[in-house]
C-alpha cells in the first residue's frame, strides 16, 4: 500500500498488522504510540510520590492502584507500538532511560506535595482521558484496542482525582489557599498539555491525514477547557490572569492568548533538556537498573526450560 492509498482508506481501526503499510505510516504511528507509552511510565513515576504524601490509608491504596494501572497501560502501548515492526519494546524502554524517549510536558516537573495530586490526577489525567477517548477511533487497530482497556480504567483515576480536589477545597482556609497557589503554578502547564497551537505543530497534519489522530490539538484543548474550567470554578479555584483566557459567548469557545504561555520552556522540555527532565528520567533509569536482576533471572529461567537438543 502506498501513502496515497493509506490516506484514502484511513478511518477508525482501518489498519492492522496484516496490512502492508508504508514506512512513513509505520514510523509516524510508532513515534506517536511510543510517546504515549513513555508518558504512561513517566506519569506513573510522578504519581508514585503521592502514595507517600496521601493523608489516609484509603488514599494511599487508591494511589498505588493508579500507579499500577499506568504502568500496565505503558505495557499495552509498547506492545501496540511493537506490532508496527519499527522498534522493539526493549529498544523503546532503553531509549527512555537513555533520555532519548519523548513524553508529555507535565511529567517533567517533579512533585513533592499532596496539593499537587489533584493537578495531576484530576486535570492532567482528565485531559489525557479526553484525548484517549478520541483515540479509540485511531486508524492503527492495536492502538485503538489498547485504548478500550485504558479508558475503561481511567474513569476511576479522574473521579478519584476530583474527589481529592473536592476534599481539599472543602477543608480549611489554609488548605484552600495552598491548592490555589499550586493551581497557579500548574494551570499554564496543563493548558500546554495539548501541545502547541495547530499552526506550530510538526506532526499534526500528517497524523490526521492517515487517521492516527482524529482530533487536532486545538480542538482537544477547547473541549478540555469547556469541561474543566467550570469544574475548577465549582470548587472555588480562580484561573490565574496569565495565560489570558476569555469565554466568547457568540462562538461558545474559550479564546486563549497563546503568546502568554512559556513556549521556550515547552520546547526545552520537548527536547528533554529541562532540569526536571533529568531528575525524572534519572529516577526511571535507577529503577530500571535496580530490577535488572529480575529480568536476568526470568531470561535464565526461560533458557533453562528449553528442551535439550539431541547430541547426535
Amino acid at each position, binding site marked *: 500500500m502506498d501513502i496515497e492509498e493509506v490516506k484514502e482508506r484511513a478511518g477508525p481501526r482501518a489498519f492492522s498488522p496484516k496490512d502492508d503499510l508504508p514506512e512513513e505510516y509505520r514510523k509516524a504511528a510508532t513515534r506517536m504510540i511510543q510517546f504515549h507509552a513513555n508518558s504512561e511510565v513517566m506519569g506513573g513515576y510522578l504519581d508514585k510520590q503521592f502514595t507517600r504524601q496521601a493523608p489516609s490509608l*484509603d488514599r494511599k491504596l487508591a494511589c498505588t*492502584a493508579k500507579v499500577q494501572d499506568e504502568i500496565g497501560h505503558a505495557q499495552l502501548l509498547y506492545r501496540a507500538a511493537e506490532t508496527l515492526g519499527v522498534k522493539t519494546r526493549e529498544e523503546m524502554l532503553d531509549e527512555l532511560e537513555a533520555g532519548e524517549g519523548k513524553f508529555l510536558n507535565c511529567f517533567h516537573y517533579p512533585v513533592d506535595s499532596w496539593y499537587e495530586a489533584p493537578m495531576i490526577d484530576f486535570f492532567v489525567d*482528565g485531559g489525557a*482521558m479526553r484525548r484517549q*477517548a478520541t483515540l479509540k477511533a485511531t486508524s492503527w487497530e492495536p492502538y485503538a484496542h489498547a485504548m478500550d482497556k485504558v479508558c475503561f480504567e*481511567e*474513569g*476511576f483515576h479522574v473521579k*478519584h482525582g476530583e*474527589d481529592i480536589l473536592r476534599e481539599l477545597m472543602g477543608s480549611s482556609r489554609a488548605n484552600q489557599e495552598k491548592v490555589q497557589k499550586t493551581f497557579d503554578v500548574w494551570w499554564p502547564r496543563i493548558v500546554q498539555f495539548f501541545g502547541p497551537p495547530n499552526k506550530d505543530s510538526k506532526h499534526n497534519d500528517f497524523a490526521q491525514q492517515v487517521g492516527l489522530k482524529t482530533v487536532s490539538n486545538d480542538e482537544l484543548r477547547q473541549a478540555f477547557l469547556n469541561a474543566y474550567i467550570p469544574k475548577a470554578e465549582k470548587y472555588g479555584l480562580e484561573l490565574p490572569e496569565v495565560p489570558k483566557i476569555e469565554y466568547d459567548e457568540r462562538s461558545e469557545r474559550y479564546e486563549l492568548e497563546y503568546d502568554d504561555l512559556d513556549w521556550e520552556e515547552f520546547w526545552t522540555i520537548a527536547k528533554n533538556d529541562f532540569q526536571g527532565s533529568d531528575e525524572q528520567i534519572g529516577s526511571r533509569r535507577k529503577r530500571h537498573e535496580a530490577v535488572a536482576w529480575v529480568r536476568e533471572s526470568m531470561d535464565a529461567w526461560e533458557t533453562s526450560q528449553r528442551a535439550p537438543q539431541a547430541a547426535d
Partner: protein
Amino acid sequence: MIWEVFRQAKPGKYHQHCGNVHAPDREMAKLFAQIQHGRRMQTNSLWVVPQEEVSEVDSDEAAFGGATDKAYRWAMTYNRVDASFAAEVEESEEEQREAAKAQEEA
C-alpha cells in the same frame, strides 16, 4: 467413583462448579452430568473431573489476600463527585459498573 461437575451457562463465561455425579467411567459421568445438571439450567458446556483430581488449599493453611476491600479501585466508589461533566469519564464509569455487575453474577 465421584465426578465433580462444572457448568458453563453461555459461550465465553467461566465453567462453575454445580455439583457432582456418581459414575463408573468418564463417558457415563458425562451422560449423568447432562441429565442431572444440564437440563434445568441454561447450559452451553459441561466439564466432569474425577473428584480425586481436584486439589484444595483452604484458609487453615493459607492466608488469602482477597479479604481486602478493593472498592478504592472503582469509579463508582467516588460518588461525592459527578462524572456527567465529561462524556468519556461517564462512559468509563458505566463500563466499570457493568463489569462489576457481571462479576457479581458470575
